[in-house]
Every structure is written in C-alpha cells, then in structure tokens.
C-alpha cells in the first residue's frame, strides 16, 4: 500500500502545483486590482478627500459587493455581464475581475478607515510646513493610514488566495479544481484534499510572512 502511495503522492503533488501556479496568478492579479481600486476608492471616500457624487457611488459599490455572496458575483461577471454587453470573457478573466472587484470593496473600507484615523493635526502640521495637498497626502497621511491598517490588509490578501478556490465552478484550472478532478479520478479524497489544504496553507503562510516583514519595516 505504502509503495503505491508515495508515487501517487508525488504525481498528485506535481499536478496540484500546476493548479497552485494558476491560483497564485489569479490571486496576484486579483490582489493588484483590489489594492489599486481599493486604495483609490478608500481615498476618494475618506473624510477630508470626499468627492461629492463619486463618494455616494463608491458607498453603493461597497454596499452591494459586501452584501452579496462572492459566488453570485462570479456568476454575474462570468454569465450575466458578457451576455448583457455582448462580450466574451474567459473563465480566468472573469475570475480575476471578480476577485479584484470583490477585494477592492473590502480594502476600500479598510483603507478609508485607516486614512480617517490619521489625526487632523497631521494634515495641519504638513500644511504649516508648506507641503502642497498632494504632498501632504502621499508623504504624510497615506503612509500612516496604511501602516495602521496593514494587519487588516494582510487578512484580506490571504482571504483572496483562499477565496480563489471558488473559481473552480466556472472551470478555472486552479488548485481546487485540479484537486477535485483528481479525487473524482483516483477516489482518494483524504490524501488529495489534505495535500490541497497543505498547499493553501503554504501559500497563505508565505503571504503572512511577507506582510509581517512589511509591517516591521513600516513600524
């Protein structure tokens, strides 16, 4: 039994790592979209930089995304929007867009909170020292705002990696889909899903280690 198990595990591991590579790719792209869009929305919705009109739009976007399941959002992006707009989206594109826009909504709220938490006195100190408004924001406010919410951002980034497993339902060949296919073929759920869980754990741990180092650098 054990003489069969080791080659099976080696073969399955190699296969799952291919899936993990796709998971890393979609997560990285989702994180990139989430961070960029989330930061822009968070900034544009913060107390001192609120843009009338745009702020209400952002609030509505955050409300809708946070109030509906990721699963439904994925189906809307993959099935409904392409049909309504007569465009085509590959499963990978739809997956990345869904993950990115979903995490952006959560990150927007986190970053908005971080920026609002920077004392008004910091703006005033920068103003008195002659900084322009953009200089005040980028040199003084944003670094401090992000620093205070870095642990929350870390959680969100780790969540994207885990949530990317939902993309299997539209056929993205990521880690979870490959492991489910392997189980269906080999009928060894314990070995395969345990290995899958271990790979996810490694991915999220690497992310956690990286962000811990970033937190230390920014402390």
């Amino acid at each position: 039994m054990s003489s069969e198990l080791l080659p099976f595990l080696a073969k399955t591991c190699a296969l799952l790592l291919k899936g993990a590579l796709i998971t890393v790719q979609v997560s990285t792209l989702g994180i990139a979209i989430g961070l960029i869009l989330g930061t822009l929305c968070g900034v544009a919705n913060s107390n001192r930089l609120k843009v009338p009109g745009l702020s209400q739009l952002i609030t509505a976007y955050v409300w809708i995304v946070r109030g509906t399941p990721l699963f439904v959002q994925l189906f809307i992006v993959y099935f409904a929007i392409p049909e309504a707009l007569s465009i085509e989206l590959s499963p990978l594109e739809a997956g990345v867009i869904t993950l990115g826009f979903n995490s952006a909504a959560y990150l927007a709220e986190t970053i908005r909170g971080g920026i609002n938490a920077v004392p008004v006195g910091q703006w005033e100190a920068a103003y008195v020292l002659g900084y322009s408004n953009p200089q005040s924001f980028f040199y003084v406010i944003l670094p401090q705002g992000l620093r205070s919410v870095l642990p929350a951002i870390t959680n969100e980034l780790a969540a994207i990696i885990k949530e990317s497993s939902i993309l299997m339902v539209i056929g993205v060949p990521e880690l979870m889909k490959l492991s489910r296919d392997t189980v269906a073929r080999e009928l060894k759920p314990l070995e395969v899903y345990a290995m899958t869980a271990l790979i996810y754990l490694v991915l999220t741990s690497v992310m956690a280690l990286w962000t811990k180092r970033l937190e230390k650098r920014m402390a």
Partner: protein
Amino acid sequence: MSTIIVRDLTLRYPGASDAALNHVNCTLDTGCVTLFLGKSGSGKTSLLRCIANVISDYAGEVQFENVPIRAMSRITRARTVGFVQQQFHLFGHMSALSNCTHPQIHVMKKTQEAARQKALTLFEHLGISGLEERRPHQLSGGQQQRVAIARALCMEASVLLLDEPTSALDPDSIGSLVEIVRVLKSDGITLAISTHDMRFAKQLLDHCYFMQGGRIVEESRAGAPGDVGPLTRAFLSA
C-alpha cells in the same frame, strides 16, 4: 517694531452661536516673546491658528511686515511662520531627523546634505543630539517638543508660535523649555506663546495679552511695577 500685526480679527466656527475671536487686535514685536494668557476656551489657540493660517476663513487681517499672511504662497508662509501645536504632531512614520529634513527637501528643495546639516545644527542647539534616528513614539514629551521646534526652525521661520507648550511636560521639562525660549529669543526669533500655565508665564513675562471670551481684554508690558494689568496680575498670582 512689530513683525506680525493682527487687525480686527473675528472668527466664528460653523454652527457656533458665539464668535471664537471677537475683533482682536494685537502685535507680535520683533525678537520678543509675546504671551497670550487666559483660561481654556478664551480664544488663544484659535488666534495662533489664524496667525499660522491653519484657519483662514476669518474676518480681519493678519500681516507679516505689511504682507497679509493669507496672500502668501505656501512656501513663503512656511518660511515666515512656524507653528508648534499642543500635541506637536510629529510625523509618526519618520525618524526625528527625517521629520526635520523631509520638509526642507520636499518643500524648500534643499539638497539632502544641506537639509541634514541644518537639522543636525538645530538638534545640537536645542540639546537633542543623539535622538536623530528615534521615532516620535520613542521620545518623551519634552523631546518631541524640541524636535517639533527644530522642525519649525528648519524652515527658517522668523516667527515661532507655540500653542500651550507646557501641557504635555513635567516640571523639569518646563524649566528646559523656558531656557529654550530664551535662547530662541536671543537668536532674534519672534515668539508667540499661548498658555494658561501661570508658573511658566511668570518666567517669560515680557509682552502679554490677556484673553477672555474671544477678546483681548488687557495688554501688559513687563518692566516696571504697575505695568502688568490687574487681570494678568490676578491670573499670575492665582
């Protein structure tokens, strides 16, 4: 000679029924220490914030050598008036030294080396050498205050406003602050200090205004007995 002239300054905060400042007229004499005394809520901080142009939607005029501070460019204003707020507001993500070099480099466009030299000179002058690499949270209240003063002076401000500078200090640090104020005065810096700390005020009594309900109700110039008005005398002896 007066460096700063405040004319008929009136300030009303949105939604407030009473004016925070009510037709205030005062001057900051060149190279002198001007104190603004009074109880909390008398308008001292609001007045300093108007002079520093942190608040600019007031009625009246604040002039530096006959130029309205409101009309100055941000860089000229920064080189004219330095303002150390009650909570100091050092930039928490920067070292003490960077707090002083960063605005010089990014606002005054100085080279890194020139900014560093200027900051180090001021650190030595203010007795905080050795604290350059510390972050604000690693400094005591008195040390933070000196870094904040150094940061303001790095911009070569000729007027320095200190808002309630003793509020976060222990008695030893208050003594050191008095010394620093005297050193700055001898350097030719025009100082305006708001305080309700009578022991601190007594040691620096030179030219002072007593404020009440957003108005200046008494002006005193120390020197000869009788020069200090009754309200100021009562405040100082309380």
